[in-house]
């Protein structure tokens, strides 16, 4: 809070009436504070809004790709149908599990003394939450590793990026989703590194922001899998 501490927040301050606003109006109109103040929540954490904006943008990008996929499959007979690597289904399980572990982490976090209102006790829960967060990140990395194995599986069958539009879209969609998921891992790492030691309400909310993104990535993957499986 640079230089903002002098004035108590939200004290209505007499506006600059040094301009002719005061001279003329002041004499004609009664100076009377009347406002239907629509206060904006000033304890808002911008990231809590921003994450949904980001979710909208990412959804749009993938919608754009999916519509391109549907159009591209329809325009030419060169769409090569292939069996999806089976590891994808294992990966799906891993990713779903990571969402579960993240939720367990959040609940453990909420049981900490400063939130549960209890005097003592749940430091154990806190350290458990810490471990569950690490587990989430590990599962995320396992998922990406699994995706790489899926690519190797396809490549072993001779299906490369440029082999067929179906494989092109497969690689592009899984790669972009994987990159976004790695971004999610980085986000969780940020939560872990910057926020964990002195965790308070603000930190709890940042964890909430990260988990919105994480669950979105989870849902996005299910959606992509359905598309890829039905259009393979």
């Amino acid at each position, binding site marked *: 809070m640079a230089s903002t501490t002098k004035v108590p927040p939200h004290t209505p301050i007499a506006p600059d009436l040094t301009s002719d606003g005061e001279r003329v109006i002041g004499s004609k109109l009664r*100076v009377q504070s009347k406002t239907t103040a629509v206060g904006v929540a000033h304890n808002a954490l911008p990231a809590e809004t921003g994450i949904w904006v980001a979710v909208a943008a990412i959804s749009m990008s993938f919608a754009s790709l999916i519509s391109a996929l549907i159009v591209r499959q329809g325009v030419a007979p060169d769409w090569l149908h292939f069996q999806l690597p089976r590891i994808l289904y294992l990966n799906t399980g891993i990713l779903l599990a990571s969402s579960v572990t993240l939720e367990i982490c959040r609940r453990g976090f909420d049981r900490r003394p400063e939130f549960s209102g209890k005097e003592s006790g749940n430091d154990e829960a806190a350290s458990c939450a810490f471990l569950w967060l690490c587990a989430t990140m590990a599962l995320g990395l396992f998922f990406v590793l699994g995706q790489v194995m899926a690519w190797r599986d396809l490549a072993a069958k001779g299906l490369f990026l440029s082999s067929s*539009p179906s494989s092109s879209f497969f690689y592009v969609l899984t790669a972009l989703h994987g990159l976004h998921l790695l971004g999610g891992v980085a986000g969780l790492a940020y939560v872990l590194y910057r926020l964990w030691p002195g965790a308070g309400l603000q930190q709890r909310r940042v964890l909430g922001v990260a988990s919105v993104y994480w669950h979105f990535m989870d849902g996005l993957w299910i959606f992509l899998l359905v598309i890829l499986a039905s259009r393979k």
Partner: protein
Amino acid sequence: MSSPEPAVHHHGPPQGFIRKHIFSLDHKVIGKQYYGLALVAVLAGLILSWLMRIHLGWQNAPIPGLGKLSPTGAPGNVMTPDYYLSLMTMHATLMVFFVLTTAPFAAFGNYLLPIQIGAEDMAFPRFNMMSFWVTFVSFIVLILSFFVGDGPPLAGWTSYAPLSSIGGIAGPGQGTGQTLWAISIAIFCVGQLLGSLNFITTTLDLRTKGMSLARMPLSTWGWFVTSVIGLLAFAALLPACILLILDRTAGTSFFSSAGLVVNDQVLPHSGGSPLLWQHLFWFFGHPEVYIAILPGFGIISTILPAFARKRILSSRAVIGCMVSIGFLSYMVWGHHMFVSGMNPFSAVLFSVPTLIITIPATIVVLLWLGTLYGARMRYTSAALFCIGFVSVFITGGLSGFFLAQPSLDTYLHATYFVVAHFHFVMALAAMFGIFAGTYFWFPKMFGRMMNETMGKWHFWLTFIGVYCVFMPMHYLGLAGNVRRYAAFTDNYLAPLIPLHRFISIAAFFVGAAQLIFFFNLFWSRFWGPKATDNPWEATTLEWSTTSPPPFDNFGGRHLVVYHGPEEYGVDSDTLEYVMQTSPQQIKTVSGE
């Protein structure tokens, strides 16, 4: 953290030069950086348009020095047709992306949006800094294409496939140049996505007490709606660019169709869809038009009342129109593709919303005109450019009615009629908005006044000049003059060459008139008279702080807003005004 202090400004005032002026987190510095980038880009784009106009007026005229820039593109200083297309592509790309998107939206928006809503900074200052620098990198990558391989791409700013997707075999500049173009635009998308994310979140979360959505200045509304459009539009273009890059570098066939024989060579691509690129591109491209113009809508709607000294006729109607334009802008992209081979039925489907979108645009124009009616105008340079904006927007909008009909567009498509249309309605209107904004906010941004005499000369020369440049293009288009031709050798085009020469001379004239603006800008920056806090007697929050504002915008004060943004002429005799921060009650005068 239960204190109600705003959760912004985690960063204090920076100390070192680099943190202060280069990698700054301050939205005001970032806004100025965007403005500077736009100035460089507009100068480059202007020079390119001059080179093109020289070539169009005098086919074989040597242009001194051009051969040095590109030995292959201009042997003996005479431009080849290919190089003409390259310059045209770069002119359009620079202007659309790096001027019309960055200046009215990113530059003014960054500088003013937080101040106008009473915030200390953007919601994510770090993303904001990244947004500018990513855009800067994208600019450098684009400019690099002048100096590699065969020069810049020649596929136009729309980069239609397969010309853009099959690589260097398609022509000079289609090798490395086109790849750099695609990479540059992809990077640009990232920068604008970060910017839009910031704009939206800041507007939603960081408004000061009393600043309801309805009390936001219309300029803020303009930037807000634009950022929503930009978020979705650039999010759609980014994957399209990635697919284009893959087609070019990884041998995929997203857009490159099968069986292409180019320069006696059979290409290996299988069944890609060139039309798919057009759909993806224009799904971004048409909203992009509104990304360029909606900030102008907001800027004009904010500046005009300040000089007309009366409220805009209905600010809620303006807001409604901007929102509906933003919404409809996603449903009309196909009107760029009437002759693309798309199903004629879908042409009708796109024609109807195109005509519908003119309704909110017309309403806004009528509201501006109605605001002017009976106003005792203060004819400052900014006010003149506002009126000029309305003029060129109407002129460009009218030709849009013709182009919106598939049957008429079949004839007019890709002629100079279209060139006239989009220059008036998008390019010129947005430029006039930029000029109006510059003359209006310069005192706030730099603490000094611009010279009004030079400003008025600049306005009149520009205003008359651009009509001389673009009005005859309607006639050229009706006469069948196809755009993107580097030379007019056909019999039916030869008689049009004198008109092209007239346009060229007018273009040199308009370009030269901009030197007045550049001189005024730099001269006033250092030697202009000092500006007071509120030189225009305007009401919005930026005029409640010093010129230029302190680092945290309001010197530690948290403003409270009591009024809407345009309480002008509250007493019809004195044309008096009430600041948004003024706690005074306003008596409603009957008949207002």
